[in-house]
Every structure is written in C-alpha cells, then in structure tokens.
C-alpha cells in the first residue's frame, strides 16, 4: 500500500557473497528485537492482570479482551472511525485543490510552494496546536477579530468535535497533499487539453479526465491520513470537549492515569485489529476498482 520507492529487479544478478546476507541480518535482528517482539508482548499482556502494587504481570485471564466488548467502547470506536473518515474527506477537499493549483499552475515556483506546504509539518505539531488553542479560544485573537468587525458574538470553536477533526486535518493534511501532488505532477497535460475538446468545459473535464487519472494519489493519501488520525490522542486531548474522546485517548489513559496496562494493551490490540480489518477492506475495494478500470 504504502509500498515505498521503486524496486525493479536488477538487470543482472551480482555474484553472491556473505556480505549482503550480513547486511540484511543486523537490521533484521534489530527489527525483530525491538518491533516484532514488542508487538507480541502487546498481544500477550492483555491475558495478564495488574498486581496489588500496580505491576502488570502475565496471566491467562480473558477479562481484558472481554472488557473491550462494551457499548461505551463500541460507540467510542465508531466515533473515532467517523472522526478519522471526516478527517480524510476534509483533507482531500483541502489537499486536492491545493495540489492542483501548485502542480498545474505553480509555474517555476512549484517546488518552493510545495516545500512551503511541507515545512510547517515538521515544526512542532504541539506548539502549533497550542497556538491554535490560544487563537481560537472564546476570548482569543480570532474571536476578538470577529467581535471587533461586528461579525456576531464570537464562536465557541474549541472543545467541539469539529475542533478535534480540525486538529487532525491540521496535523495530517500534508500526507494527502503530497501523494496527490505527485500524481498530478505525472499527469499528462495534453490529456486534459484533449479532454477539454472532448467534453467541453473544465468541470466535466476534471471529473472525467483529471480526477480518474490521479485517483491513486488520492487513495494513497486517504490511507496515510486515516491511519495516524485514528490513533491520535493529542488533538482530542488539547482541542476536544467532554464527548470527543477517541481510541488513542482511551489507550493513553490506561497507561497513564488508569494504571491498567493489560487493559490498555487489549485496547491497543483492538485498535490494531480494527485498523487491519479496515485496511483489508480498503485494499480489496481499491484493487477491485483498479482491475475494473
């Protein structure tokens, strides 16, 4: 899915030596030690319990996995998925026009513009969120501006579902912009021009030529936004309200205040299971579509 980078088979095979095997062995051992084994622990710990003094220990209890099957959690799970989906849709609505404008109308400033889009995303997410929190608060700069210009009595932006989703879009929209931009970059402009002759009008051309030609960028972006959005806990923590808890918050709470690591691990596993199921469904859908066209 997020298969990275081109990896064509080499034209010829190099003569076999121990060197390549050794090169592969060290990082593989690392990944097994620090990633694979850690994931196994995550799956096994839910069978455990917490001791009197608050230590998680292995055991054979099913309670923690069973605890996941709870109306409140299921509702929260649905809510998280909805937020993540809304994030994907909003990101696409913002990212596509932006990528389009830069890729096809950016001229010689194209690279500078796309760099300008990317740069903020590597500059402290937390600080930017906190700045927004201050700017959007009821007495903040934005609301003062609204009141000052006579545009009503100000808006309670913060602590709403939309604030959380806005925070998620803000955090991850770049992962939507870049793949779309990349696919627009590869788009053959003459196709669009031909489309204009054929379909008349830029709108119909867009929907019958440009959009289909760049759909893989859109798919890739959707996945790259959905995954981190579903696991995020910072946005709901900083911008959310009383009813905007997400799965990430739930997990984080078990590990920090809840002091119930086995339950937290069970929630983590639940989250991964949900993600895997959604990913499989998504892959099925996109590959079927790819085959049909």
């Amino acid at each position: 899915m997020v298969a990275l980078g081109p990896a064509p088979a080499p034209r010829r095979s190099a003569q076999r030596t121990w060197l390549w095997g050794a090169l592969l062995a060290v990082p593989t051992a690392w990944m097994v030690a620090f990633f694979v084994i850690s994931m196994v622990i995550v799956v096994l710990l839910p069978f455990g319990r917490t001791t009197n003094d608050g230590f998680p220990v292995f055991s054979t209890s099913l309670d923690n996995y069973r605890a996941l099957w709870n109306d409140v959690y299921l509702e929260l799970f649905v809510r998280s998925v909805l937020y993540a989906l809304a994030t994907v849709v909003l990101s696409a609505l913002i990212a596509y026009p932006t990528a389009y404008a830069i890729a096809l109308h950016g001229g010689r400033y194209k690279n500078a513009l796309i760099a300008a889009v990317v740069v903020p995303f590597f500059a402290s997410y937390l600080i930017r969120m906190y700045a927004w929190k201050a700017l959007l608060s009821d007495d903040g700069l934005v609301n003062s501006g609204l009141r000052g210009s006579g545009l009503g009595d100000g808006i309670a932006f913060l602590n709403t579902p939309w604030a959380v989703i806005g925070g998620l879009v803000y955090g991850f929209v770049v992962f939507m912009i870049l793949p779309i931009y990349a696919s627009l970059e590869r788009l053959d402009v003459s196709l669009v021009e031909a489309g204009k002759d054929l379909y008349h009008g830029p709108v119909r051309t867009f929907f019958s030529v440009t959009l289909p030609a760049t759909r893989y960028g859109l798919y890739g972006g959707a996945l790259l936004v959905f995954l981190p959005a579903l696991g995020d806990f910072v946005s709901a923590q900083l911008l959310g309200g009383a009813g905007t808890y997400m799965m990430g918050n739930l997990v984080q709470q078990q590990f920090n205040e809840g002091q119930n690591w086995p339950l937290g691990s069970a929630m983590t596993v639940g989250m991964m299971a949900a993600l895997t199921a959604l990913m499989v469904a998504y892959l099925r859908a996109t590959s079927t579509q790819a085959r049909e066209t």
Partner: protein
Amino acid sequence: MTATTTASKPLSRAGTPSVSLRGLTKVFGGTTVVDHLDLDVAGGEFFSLLGPSGCGKTTTLRMIAGFSDPTDGSVLVGGEDVTSTPPHKRDVNTVFQSYALFEHLDVRGNVGFGLRRKGLDRRTLDRRVSEMLELVELADKGREKPSRLSGGQRQRVALARALINEPKVLLLDEPLAALDLQLRHAMQAELKALQREVGITFLFVTHDQDEALSMSDRVAIMNNGVLEQCGTPEDVYERPTSVFAAGFIGTSNLMSGVWSHGSVVVAPSVAIPAPAHHGSAEGDTVSVAVRPEKIWLGDHTDEMFRLPGTIEATTYHGATTRYRVAIAPGLALTVLEQNLPRMRAEDRWDPGDRVEVGWLPEHTVVLT
C-alpha cells in the same frame, strides 16, 4: 554443433590462448542462456562476440569477468582456471556498456582506481595515469568530474580505467552502443588503433555486425546460447555455415530446396547448381544463400549461372540501387547494384522489365 569444430581450430598466432572457455553453461531459472560453449581467444587478438540481444553473449562476458557463476563448465584466463575466482582477483578488466564511471571521483581518480587498489606508490601512479590519459587524449580533463564529459569522453575514461591495469584480456560490453552514429564510427577506428598499440587481447561484445566485421581479427556468431560460427570476418561473411549466420550478417537471398544431381531445386523451374557439400545426400532439404551484391543483372560471363526474371520493385539508395527480381512464382531475389559513375537514372531497370540474373557458382553457399 558445427561451431565447436571451427571454433577450436589451431590459431596461427598460437601460444597459450588468452581466454579459453570449456563447456561453459549458464542456466537461469530453467532457461539455458549459454549452452556448452567452447572457445579460445589468442593472445593479442581482437575478438568479437556477435549476436542478437538475448543470445547469451553478455552473459558469457560476465562469466569471464566473474560477475556471474557458470552453471557448468570452466573459464581459463592465460591458461589458468579462474572459474571460482572472484572478479577482483581475475586478470581481466571490463568496459561496461553504461561505462559505470564513479561519479564521485574525477577523471584521474577513476583512471587510477585499479592501480590504487594494487597499492602503487603515489608517484608511479600519477605518472601512469598521466600516460594513460595522454594515450586516450584526455590529458586536459584529469580534474573534471565524469558528469561534465561528453559521451565519447566518458567512453575513453572507461577504457583508460580498464587498460591502465594491463589486464590479460579486456572485456568490452557493447561500449559503443550509447554513442551516435558518427561518433561511433570514429571511436571504432580509435579503438582498433588503441588495441594495436597496447597489444592487449580484446574480447568485444556487440550486436552490430558492421562493427564486428570492421574491427575484429576474428568474429564468433552466437545465437540462443550456442556458437553458430567462428572465423575471420571474411570467413563468416563470405562463407556462412548456417542459415542463422547467413541471415544475421549482411543480407542474403536465402532459399530452401532439395538436393538433386549437383543442384538445389528451389522451385519447380529453378535448379541452382551448387558445389558439393559434405554430408548431404540426394533428396535432402538444404538451404542456399546468395549475397545480393554478387548477383549481376547484365554483363554476364560464361561461367555464371543465369536465370530469367522480372523486376518487381526498384529502390534507389544513393550509392546503390536495390531490385526485387521475381524468378519463379512466389520466389524473388534481392539484387544490389552499385550506382557507378557511368550510370544514369534512365539506365536503371523499372518494375515490369524482363531481365536475366546471373552469379558465379562459387558464390552459391549451401547451408544446412
């Protein structure tokens, strides 16, 4: 295979062969790419492996260089079996098709790379590099990065980088393929001159028959992993021994027929007299080939074999004119005529003209 018999015939310049291949075989995932190849290349020889792409010539070269392990058979360099020797210990060097220059080093760094590996002292190294650059006429480019050089210059750097190690054999993998036509012709001449000057055995891989014929002392024609024919350029051109060799080098009028009373019957009305061919018996199906430029449309002599025909098409090619002459239903010959000074446009034949084609019997080559 007929090739094996011709390939290993004793060499006039003799001595130990520079490169010997014995039953060399390479199988890739069930496909035999090189099939029991036997070959000897003499010291100081300019030897070409010629064949269409995918015929196994590059694989053969890579097995000689050591980049690829033979499935079977052995490679000898200077009489020594190097089949299981890693590339860096083989006394051969390669000029790659892409040149494979080291972009992070300048020209001198590239050329001196091999010698530095051998641990030569600085002064000797500098002198040898300068000499080599002199030889390939790049003395003033020593400090340039390869990316700033033209195609021809890059090619010469690649050559210098390999030659400076004075290998027993220099392997060249289509080194001229990336150059444009004019430059390629110039480089062919230079390469040949260079080879004479340094006296190193060149094993040259190409799919370009002109290149192979004009530069080589000997040419081996490969097809589907086997040697079709091996000999001097004249041998392989004038006396091809297989249908493939005749078809691949130059153009030939190839006709198949049945051997009958010293002639090959290629059509009910056409029996072409042919020299006796060993191993063929009365009634066998054989092929005959005649080069288009050997066929005359007039000025025949008595020794020539002659046939009536009709001009089907005339194509003007500048230095030559090419005719298609029908000699029987469904059977036409290509004839190439020089446009000599005395000829004018109206002297050419036009479609529909009735003509007589003729050639000397020794120009009829029988193939099996």
